[in-house]
Each structure stands twice: as C-alpha cells, then as structure tokens.
C-alpha cells in the first residue's frame, strides 16, 4: 500500500489529509505529522488584542478534525532525508513515504530584526495577541506605530485590518484623539497590490492615520523607543505593533527543496515541488507569488489530492481539478462593522467593492463556520 505523509496540521495539512482519505478509501496509508496537537484558527487572532475574541475559542484538538483513516503523529520534523524518501522527527523516529505533502506554514522570526523582539508587539501568535491585549487595555494615549516588518508575511491585509480596528477601538474608548496612529509599509504605497492600496489609503487618511511608506524596518531601539528604517527615517513610538519578518519551517531552510528563507520551490499550477514529482507543497510554505492565506491553502488542496489520487488509482487526472490558477479570497475588515472582500488569481488582480456591513457579517459567520466547513473539506 502506498504511504502518503502530510507535514503540518494547520489549514492546508488538515484539509489535504481529509481530502485524500475521502478519495482513497483503503488504497493508501495516510499519516499526518504535526508539531502541535491543536489546530489553530489564526484569523481569529486579529480580534484578540481588542478583547473582541477569546483566544481559547480559536483552537481545537487536531485529532477531532481528522478523518478516522488519517493516522496522527505528534512530533516536530527535524529534517528531510530525500534520497531515502523519509522524514526524521526531533525525537529520532523516521517516517517513510511514497508521496510527501509539505504544509508546515510560515513562522514569525522577530529575531531577524535587532531590537524587534524586545521593543515591539504583534498579533501573529496566540501568545503575542494576548499580550497585546493586556497592553491595549492599559493604554491611555500616546503614539502607536503599526507596520509591516518584512515581506512576504501571511495574511497580507491583516496589518491594515488591525489599523482600522484599532481606530474603532480607541474611538469607542474615547482615546482616539489622545492617540497618534502611524502606519508603515515597505514599498511606496500602503499595500503591495495596487487596487487594494487605492481602497485602503483614502480610508486610512479619513481616519486620521499617518502614513509612512518605503519604510523597511532595519532595527528597533527599545530604550529610546524608536523604529528605524533602512531608508534612514526613524519613528518614535509609545507602542509599536510590527508584523515580524516570516520564514518557512526551520527544517526547510537550506534543504534542497527550499530557498534560504525556507520557502519551498513549488510549481505554480501543479503544486509539485521542483525536481521531486512525488512531493507537493501548499499553503504558506510555498514560494508562490500569491498571498499567504488560509484561503490559498483551501483552493490548492483539491489540486494536490487529485494528482496523488489519480496516480495511485492509475487513472488520468480530472482536468477540472488538476491545476491551481492562483485563486485567493480574503475579507478586509475596515472597522465600524464594515468590510470589503478581495478575490483574485494569478492573472486577475482584485477589485475590492466599497466596504459594507454585509461582508463584515460574512466574515463573522465564516469565522464561526470554519470548523465545520474548511478543515473537513465540506466546502
């Protein structure tokens, strides 16, 4: 029996394992390896700093989300042994595969910028979002700098959403006119995709947010409370909320299937890993020129499941599901109960509609329905 090994128990890994289990009843042995026994719903972290979401409601047992035919192995991958078609875990046990799917996501690496870990807050881990909540609760006014400390990072719109929600939160608490908010971004507009920047920039200005573009964070001085850019500017702050730089999983850095930052060389349509036709990658871990978002993993998973299942079943692939076209859909919260939506692919940039309460409610409903719909492969 063929052995399929899935690395990572997040959005991509859980979904692909379940799709494979459905497609390949008893024709393959499917094992999922994950460093954590919990599946985390990261999009909910956006609301944690404001006390609008309890982090405990944002995770579930991974086992409870997996099809019974998927074997779960809790352990951290230490290295790949590609010639032996094996994966070695930190505890030393080795797992062999005929097909490998890499879905180990991305991790934040504040240590890549001097002073960042000591001087800044963020909301890109459960713990950090919770700590930021404690700081905001105590906030009485001053200068807040919100920004992006490196590209690429996951959920590209989250820093914009955070800024809009921060404006709403401070307004509700009567602290907005005592707070100066500055938003920073590495390139010369507020977002990498032009059509999104065109919608977001007027909204930031309307809310009185100062904008500092071409700001590539070089270091943070936690004592003087300064965020310093490569371009030579420095911003004083009382509270710094910086999305740290990201990298792929540590075991991928320097491995033959990934670049120096650990992003896996992935074919943009088949999702096969370069030079390794029996290895696939999806979600944040790929080097694809598309947003690192849960919805990306969601649209990618059926493609990989179809390729592997067709090969094991000795049939031609169903062309309808055989290639990924770069499809991504993301909500963009704009505060005060409104949101917009971005839907795009490799060839079509998004055309975000005017923010409305409808998309905000859709996002809220999706956040609740996620558990029943996405990891299980219902939609």
């Amino acid at each position, binding site marked *: 029996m063929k052995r399929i090994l899935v690395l990572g128990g997040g959005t991509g890994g859980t979904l692909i394992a379940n799709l494979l289990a459905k497609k390949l009843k008893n024709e393959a042995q499917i094992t999922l390896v994950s460093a954590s026994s919990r599946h985390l719903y990261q999009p909910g972290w956006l609301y944690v700093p404001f006390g609008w979401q309890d982090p405990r409601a944002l995770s579930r047992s991974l086992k409870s989300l997996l099809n019974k035919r998927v074997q779960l192995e809790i352990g951290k991958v230490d290295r790949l042994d590609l010639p032996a078609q094996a994966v070695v875990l930190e505890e030393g046990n080795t797992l062999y595969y005929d097909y490998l799917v890499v879905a180990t996501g991305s991790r934040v690496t504040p240590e890549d910028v001097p002073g960042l870990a000591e001087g800044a807050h963020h909301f890109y881990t459960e713990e950090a979002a919770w700590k930021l909540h404690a700081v905001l609760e105590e906030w009485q006014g001053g200068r807040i700098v919100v920004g992006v400390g490196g*590209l690429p990072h996951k959920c590209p719109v989250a820093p914009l959403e955070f800024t809009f929600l921060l404006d709403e939160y401070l307004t509700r608490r009567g602290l907005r006119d005592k707070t100066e908010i500055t938003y920073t971004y*590495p*390139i*010369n507009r507020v977002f*990498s995709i*032009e059509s999104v920047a065109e919608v977001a920039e007027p909204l930031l200005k309307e809310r009185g947010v100062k904008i500092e573009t*071409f700001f*590539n964070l*070089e270091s943070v001085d936690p004592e003087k409370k300064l965020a310093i850019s*490569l*371009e*030579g500017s420095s911003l004083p702050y009382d509270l710094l909320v910086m999305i740290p730089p990201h990298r792929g999983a540590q075991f991928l850095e320097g491995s033959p299937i990934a670049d120096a930052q650990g992003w896996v060389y992935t074919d943009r349509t088949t999702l096969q890993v370069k030079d390794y036709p029996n290895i696939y990658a999806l979600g944040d871990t790929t080097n694809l*020129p598309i947003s690192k978002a849960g919805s990306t993993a969601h649209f990618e998973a059926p493609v990989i499941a179809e390729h592997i299942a067709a090969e094991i079943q000795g049939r031609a692939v169903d062309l309808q599901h055989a290639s990924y076209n770069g499809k991504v859909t993301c909500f963009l919260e704009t505060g005060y109960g409104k949101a917009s939506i971005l839907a795009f692919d490799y060839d079509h940039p998004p055309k975000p509609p005017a923010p409305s309460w409808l998309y905000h409610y859709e996002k809220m409903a999706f956040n609740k329905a996620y558990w029943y719909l996405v990891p299980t492969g219902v939609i």
Partner: protein
Amino acid sequence: MSNPVQISKEIDARGSFCPGPLMELIRAVKAANVGEVIAVLSGDPGSVKDIPAWVTKAGHKFLGMEDAGGEVKRFIVRKAR
C-alpha cells in the same frame, strides 16, 4: 558589456511580480558594502517607477536602467551610505 561601472552583484528577479524585484533589490542593498553597485533584472512594469523612487528615498544613487531583452530591464544602483 557597455556599462562603465563594475557591477558587483546582479539579481535575477525576472518572473517575480510586484513588489518582488524591489524587495530583492532592498535585500541586496542591505547586504552590500557602501560604494558597491548592484543590478536587478525585472520584467515587472511597476519596477520602472518603484525602483528609482525607492533608491532616491533611501539616499542611494540610481545609475540607470537599460533594456535586457523583451520586457526585461536592468536597473543599476550604487549603495551610497
């Protein structure tokens, strides 16, 4: 080559789309020594505007841009500080 300056590093960012080539250039400038010349190849039309704008903002010197076949352009930058 027709360039009078000596390029110490050339980055091939063809096939990478906005803001890929600019971010690659920023990373390379960060790693370079003052005075070194860096070139980046980009086929992304946005680079024509974005790369010179960043170089000026960051206080480096934009030495020029030349055709490198098809849509691709070579942008040449000297790290000035």
